[in-house]
């Protein structure tokens, strides 16, 4: 019990650090850039392990696979560049903590629990533009900066029941919260005009619930499926409700093949009905699409197999993105690789992942290098 309290405290104590998993030029649109709540291990597998990862909020039944109390923390650093409408930006970088959590069995019962804090959507951007305006009959150059720093956080709790060796089911609830610091400024080329700056605090409130199942068909084949329904997200600026956006229903399925102890091949597909938000976002000129993603990866020497202390992982991911300024739906492709290292009598595991992500569509070509470090502790 003391271990549980310690790990829970560590996990929840890290909540304020949860800011945003990713930033992208697409963060400006819609409710932000939908984040990936995934561990470093699952990221290295292209997201194909999301359905079976004990810490992935995608499936509340997945925590049933944990045999002991465990906590994880993840840090991700991205280096980004983009080309859009003859505008090129390079050298952009940021570091975030996309997923932390604690999970484990409730004593010797068949019930497992999981508490996670991750990022639902990233709201971080800092856009600088220049223009010339006519003031007092004279052209005056201006430089505008519009920024948002924050994210919509997803605080999740789940319970899983290991019904049998072949079946586990789970249910979960999600509190959507978080905030962003908004800023806007204008500096005039003619210094007789004073600079203008304004800050605001945007906060979010919503909830969702989900259910999932994991089925061990054979020793080598495992299936997973989940459904998540998120309700409306209320958005407030400086304590005044300024908007409400309908959130999508998520349907996901996964397949985990284990042809041998030393090899995992895992795939997860996800479908989200983002068009529910179309009417709410129409006023901002945002075109909304439903999204589909598929991630698949191979893991050589999984940490739980006992074959190796240094697993190797490779993955591929394709996903469409929900928000666009025009009728063209953007998408992203990712190639991933990673490894890990078990130590301290298998009680600690460090995972590292390198991702190359290419986004395109809506007139944008964005390239990202992402380096993720994850730590798993089992007291």
């Amino acid at each position, binding site marked *: 019990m003391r271990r549980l309290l310690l790990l829970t405290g560590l996990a929840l104590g890290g909540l304020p650090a949860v800011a945003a998993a990713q*930033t992208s*030029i*697409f963060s*400006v649109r819609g409710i932000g850039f939908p984040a990936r709540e995934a561990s470093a291990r699952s990221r290295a597998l292209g997201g194909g392990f999301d359905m079976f990862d004990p810490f992935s909020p995608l499936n509340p039944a997945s925590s049933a696979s944990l045999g002991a109390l465990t906590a994880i923390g993840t*840090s991700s*650093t991205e280096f980004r560049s983009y080309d*859009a*409408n003859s*505008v090129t930006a390079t050298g*952009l*970088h*940021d*570091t975030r903590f996309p997923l932390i959590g604690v999970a484990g069995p409730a004593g010797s019962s068949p019930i497992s629990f999981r508490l996670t804090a991750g990022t639902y959507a990233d709201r*971080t*951007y*800092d*856009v*600088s*533009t220049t223009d010339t*305006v006519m*003031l*007092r009959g004279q052209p005056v150059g*201006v430089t*505008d*900066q*519009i*920024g948002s720093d924050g994210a919509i956080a997803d605080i999740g709790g789940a319970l899983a029941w290991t019904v049998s060796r072949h079946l586990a089911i789970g249910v979960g609830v999600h509190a959507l919260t978080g905030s962003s610091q908004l800023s*806007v400024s*204008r500096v*005039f080329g003619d210094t*007789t*005009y*004073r600079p*203008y700056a304004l800050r*605001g605090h*945007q906060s979010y409130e919503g909830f969702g619930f989900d259910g999932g199942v994991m089925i061990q068909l054979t020793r080598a084949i495992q299936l997973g499926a989940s459904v998540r329904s998120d309700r409306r997200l209320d*958005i407030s*600026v400086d304590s005044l409700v*300024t*908007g409400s956006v309908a959130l999508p229903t998520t349907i996901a399925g996964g397949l985990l093949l284990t042809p041998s102890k030393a090899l995992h091949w895992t795939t997860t597909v996800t479908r989200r009905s983002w068009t529910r938000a179309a009417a709410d976002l129409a006023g*901002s*000129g945002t075109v909304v699409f439903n999204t589909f993603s598929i991630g698949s990866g191979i893991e050589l020497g999984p940490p739980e197999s006992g074959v190796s*202390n*240094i697993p190797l992982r490779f993955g591929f991911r394709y996903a469409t993105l929900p928000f666009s*300024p*025009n009728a063209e739906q953007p998408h992203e492709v990712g190639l991933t690789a990673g490894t890990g*290292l*078990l*130590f*301290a*009598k*298998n009680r*600690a595991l*460090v995972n*590292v992942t390198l991702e190359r992500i290419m986004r395109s569509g*809506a*007139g*944008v070509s964005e390239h990202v290098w992402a380096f993720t*470090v994850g*730590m798993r502790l089992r007291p």
Partner: protein
Amino acid sequence: MRGTVVRGLTAKRVRRLAVALTGAALLGCGQDVTAPGVCPEFCPPVGVQVVDSIMPTAADSTFDGYVSSYAASALELIAAPGGFGVGPSRGVIRFFALRDSLRVNAIDTVLAPIASTDSFAVQVDVLRRRADAKGIRLGIYRLPTTVDSTATYAQLEPYFQDSTLIGTIALDDTLQNGLVSTSIPASAFPGWPADSFVVAVGVAVLSPDSAWVNIGAVEAGSGAQLSLYVHQDSSGTSVPRQDSRLSGLDMFVAPPPVVPPAGVLAVGGSPSSRVLMHLDVPSAIVDSSSVVRATLLLVPSEPVIGGSQDTVAVIAHALTADFGPKSPLILVPADSIALRAGNALVGTRDTVRVDLTDVLRVWHTHPELPHTIILRATPEGATGAAVRFGTSAAPSAKLEVTYIPPYKFRG
């Protein structure tokens, strides 16, 4: 042992590696997400709007007699042909009393009488001058020691004659400001011991062309200085010694300017005039918006008077309370005066633009303040230059405000 030793790596080394990885991740916790915008596709849909608005001013009134020349920070000396709408002006300086005995040595406790007076020297601080005037000289005249702050130009004009000229200072044509001095023979003040050791001089600009010079006043710490050079007996040896005095009174006198019609709004002059102006700025601008620039436009109703080619700087003050002409001013930082003042060129009727941005911003943050300003010249009372711009009944001033309406972050 598996788990504690990994192919040659000890558990200790592995732990170090884990710590290093974690540290590297944490050290990377910075961000640079500032990027050029791709608008309108990837910019927030609500931009910053800037609005220009011009509005008339409300009631105005002129009040006189704020700062007289004897209390001003400078003395304006205008040569006979050097003014526009104002006559020539003369400086009047009366020094603190000298003494008839001095210490021979600095450590002496007893004063020794002055054996003989050798000479005097007068030093003045030139602050500004008409830059393009050539061959300017400052004439030093002996004035009666009874002169005081009530003296008028007409009363003192007889003393500015060749017979009372006791010295001149030639200004180098390239000198725009700085200390200048001249030696004056002892015979110039034969009666100074009898006059209670007081010496008074007049200063006038001597120039064949249009010219003016502003010299420092004691009120600003740059007043004139009188030096006395004497010989004293030191144990049977005559030794030279020196004594100095600052001015106790300095001012300038000029013929009274033409009195403007009643109700004319005027800023400047000596004694100085101020304008009390009420501004009716909509609450939507001053309270709810962000003012990025505010300018008071003053259109002179007649050419600005003063020294030819000189300028009059007009500045606006917000008030802590509106008590009419005696309203307390919110002072302007010294380093902001030049930025906020509007300059009027003497002899022209060009629009004078006085910056009011800080005034409106103060009103924004302190809504209890009255929407009233006072316009005054700066430095005040130091010259006879003045701007006249319309009448109380028909003010010609306008307020131009550039502001950003309340910005609404998108939901």
